[in-house]
């Protein structure tokens, strides 16, 4: 099984850096979620990893070796958008893969396509967006690859088929497959991924095991006597990652030791101090858009 090592990857288009000094290590047999807002550089990262776009700098190694054409026997890739040949039938796409990849299993592809309710005789142009995604997913999962790189693999799928894809990912992971995938459905990433990385503007801004990130990061909130009441140095505390104040309410994003920070906040004069757990979506939103994220979390908690 494979380890993917991305080291100081950089891809520029003119003055614009789509990927900027990105380094990631994806251990073998891991389900790894790559998160980021639109235009963060996820797809470009995938393309650079597969040599579909030439990296300006940096290296990508698979088990310590650079990508060569033969590596594609072990890698299955589902691109973000449909790349099917419109004039070809689904069956012809299956045949194309059977000819190209030695480990491709046409029977498995047939089963998966049937599970998605897709008729192999249909031309690609007759398929909806979701069905095209399903065709690419079915073909990728029939490849018996060691590495799956899935760029928005549930895009356009209905909730039932989204769940089906998620199950496929989990099953492949159980087989020992290394899976790197991106999705805007953060709930799905939270379910499937063991580790995540968050990229924004081409740069890595957060990385870690999902459980660790959730365990470590908490919100400590309280109500201060007035809007400008001092926090007694909590803003500069290394355990406090962010501080947001809205009138008298203060919210601290804490990276560790939430209980001690809560005690310190109480000691500084706050009342009603409580510790709030974060889910992956909160962590993501804090990471990529702190101000908005704060507002979202506040709004959601107020609603509760």
């Amino acid at each position, binding site marked *: 099984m494979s380890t993917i090592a991305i080291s100081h990857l950089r891809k520029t288009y003119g003055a614009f850096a789509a990927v900027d000094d990105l380094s990631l290590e994806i251990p073998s047999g891991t389900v790894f979620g790559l998160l980021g807002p639109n235009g963060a550089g996820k797809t470009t990262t995938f393309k650079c990893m597969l040599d*579909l776009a030439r990296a300006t700098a940096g290296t990508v190694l698979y088990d310590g070796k650079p990508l060569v*054409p033969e590596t*594609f026997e072990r890698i299955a890739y589902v691109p973000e958008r449909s*790349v099917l040949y419109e004039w070809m039938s689904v069956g012809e796409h299956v045949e194309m893969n059977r000819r190209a990849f030695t480990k491709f299993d046409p029977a498995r592809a047939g089963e998966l396509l049937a599970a998605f309710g897709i008729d192999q005789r249909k031309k690609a142009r007759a398929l909806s967006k979701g069905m095209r995604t399903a065709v690419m997913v079915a073909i990728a999962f029939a490849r018996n690859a060691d590495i799956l790189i899935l760029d928005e693999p549930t895009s356009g799928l209905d909730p039932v088929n989204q769940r089906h894809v998620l199950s496929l990912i989990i099953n492949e992971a159980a087989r020992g497959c290394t899976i790197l995938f991106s999705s805007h459905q953060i709930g799905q990433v939270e379910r499937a991924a063991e580790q995540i990385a968050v990229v924004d503007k081409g740069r890595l801004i957060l990385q870690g095991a999902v459980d660790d990130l959730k365990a470590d990061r908490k919100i400590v909130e309280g109500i201060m006597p007035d809007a400008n009441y001092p926090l007694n140095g909590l803003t500069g505390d290394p355990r406090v990652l962010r501080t947001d104040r809205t009138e008298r309410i203060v919210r601290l994003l804490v990276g560790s030791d939430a209980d001690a920070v809560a005690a310190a906040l109480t000691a500084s004069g706050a009342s009603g101090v409580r510790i709030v757990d974060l889910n992956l979506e909160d962590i993501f939103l804090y990471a990529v858009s702190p101000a908005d994220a704060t507002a979202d979390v506040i709004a959601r908690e107020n609603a509760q």
Partner: protein
Amino acid sequence: MNYVEWLRVRGCLKWTAIVLVVCVAIVLFGRFTYLNIDVHSKMLAGVQIGDQSFAQFEASSKETTTKLPDGTVRTVIDNPAKGIRITVDDRGYWGKHFELFEKKPPHDAKVENVDFGDLHLKRVILPNGSLVTVDEGALVPEDLNYYFAFATLVAMIVATILGAPFARENEGHLELALAKPVSRIGFALQTIAADVAGIVAAFVMTVIFLMIGHTIFEAPNYTYGPTDTMVLAIGLAGAFAWYGMLNVSTASMKRSYGAVLGIAWPIALGLGGIAHAPLGDSALAAFVRSIGEAVLWLFPTKYLHFSFISGLGSEAHRQSLALSPQTDLVILACLALIYGAFAIYQWQRVEA
């Protein structure tokens, strides 16, 4: 072989075959309807014999028709007063032999020996007049020059349709095309190989359909002539070079490559027209003409000459050509290779 490209080629050949079948069907229909006319009385009516038309000649002639033991229908039209005798041996589907003896041939009559397809015309000057013999159909061994020349046109049309294989991949399929265990150069070579095979197949199909079309009218008597190999080589090299030119022109395009394919023929023909157009002697005309000629050097059509085929083109035109057929062939082969190599080089730089 690149499976996707092969599917494209297969589709293109299917449509080529459909068009050729339709053409043969039209020929077949025409053969047994419109063209099924009496050759003797109608087609010869406009022929000049000496200083008079055949119709005038026939009016004062004696015509006898006999059937020879081998089934040949011999018609002799004799006019001793005018010193003219025509003999037509009609073997029906197997061809005709025609002889015209004139005691007083036209004043500009000279020895002639002309081959055009399955038609052979020969005039000999005799002490007492001249004798023109015309053989057609199975009586004349026919080489494949004309078929190869026509097949070249069809092969170039097919080359035009297939001419943007890399641009078609660039148009949103690179993630499929390149994420395979084959190098880009390997993939490109497989693609080109599929297209080249398709162009050759279209060429062969056209020759076969031309033979079928010919057979509808008369029995063929094919022979491999001395210039057939050269015509075949120039035709195929021309089609490959044309394909290569279109390929290199579109290899880095992600869309709108169809426009390039669409305007290639008008540009090639237009440049040829500009280079030879009577634009006058002004400086502007000379400039336009020189630009046209210079650009035309890049077009394979400039080197596609078939006037060395007997019966095609005048002697003056043949002599006006700057290049020999051998030189044309070498240039076309070089263009095909250079354009192909540049197309691959260019395509290697394209990113998904």
